[in-house]
């Protein structure tokens, strides 16, 4: 599957929000010794998101079991990857959360100063950095992965999908105990 095919298969669908899943992706790849590597993708996503938020956004991020909707209008930043493992990493949150993240990244005193392009760029960069950090954490087990350039869309209850048969990790988080967001990793 090439990247274009993969992007085409990522449909934005209207859906409810599932509870947080813990998924262990088994049999990433069998090495020469045929040893099965088990990696906690959920931990990789959560730890990577924490690292990015601590160092670049200056906000504390904690896992949350709040499964309610993220809001009527949400912003979804996604980045696809292909190689020995294909998939998509996304971060989704409401507009208020995205503006606060952007203001913090840019060192602005108020979200009033934040422009639409800044929000889109900043959220895309969050997806890019979290994916890069996830990749660094799993690359010994997952093999070669090439990451694309992020894309950002805004709409009602957006979610990425790779269709049937795809594995998924969804991590709900609380940001500074004030905002909520969801990170998802879809893979096959």
């Amino acid at each position, binding site marked *: 599957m090439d990247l274009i095919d993969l992007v085409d298969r990522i449909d934005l669908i209207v859906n409810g929000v599932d509870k947080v899943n813990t998924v262990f992706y088994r049999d990433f790849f069998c090495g020469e010794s045929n040893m099965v590597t088990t990696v906690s993708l959920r931990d990789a996503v959560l730890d990577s998101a924490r*690292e*990015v938020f601590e*160092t*670049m956004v200056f906000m504390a991020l904690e896992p949350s079991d709040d499964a309610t909707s993220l809001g009527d209008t949400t912003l979804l930043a996604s980045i696809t990857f292909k190689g020995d493992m294909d998939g998509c990493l996304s971060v989704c949150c409401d507009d208020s959360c995205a503006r606060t993240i*952007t203001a913090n*990244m*840019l*060192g602005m005193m108020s979200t009033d100063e934040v422009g639409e*392009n*800044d929000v889109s*760029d*900043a959220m*895309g*960069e969050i997806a*890019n*950095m979290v*994916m*890069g*950090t996830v*990749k*660094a954490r799993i*690359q010994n087990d997952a093999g070669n992965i090439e*990451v694309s*350039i992020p894309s950002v869309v805004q709409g009602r209850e957006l979610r990425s999908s790779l269709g049937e048969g795809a594995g998924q990790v969804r991590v709900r988080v609380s940001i500074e105990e004030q905002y909520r967001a969801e990170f998802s990793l879809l893979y096959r």
Partner: protein
Amino acid sequence: MGKSLMIVDDSATMRKIIMRTVRMSGLEFDRTEEAGSGVEALEKLKAGPIDVVLCDINMPEMNGTEMVKHARQLPSCAGTKIIMVSTESAEDLIKQVLADGADGYITKPFTPEKFQEKLTPLLN
């Protein structure tokens, strides 16, 4: 004579974030420039020497690795220190970019301390 800095990234927001992080690191530059692509960066490098270039890798039009290769052919770029700034952290890629002419590599996410650690030795 003061030092000059150019930040190369296709994201204007990321350029602002990098500039902010450089300031937070305590490093001072008398002149700063920005470029939104490898092509634009090369044009600015042809126009005159720049002491330090902080360059993204994944960019449309001309990526950072290509930009470094072209820049190293420019006489005006002989003394320029080029530091790659990217989410890519694969060892093979980093080795290749350094072999192609980059002077250093900073992975995202980054901190002001990381910029200070990587840039200070190059400025002295």
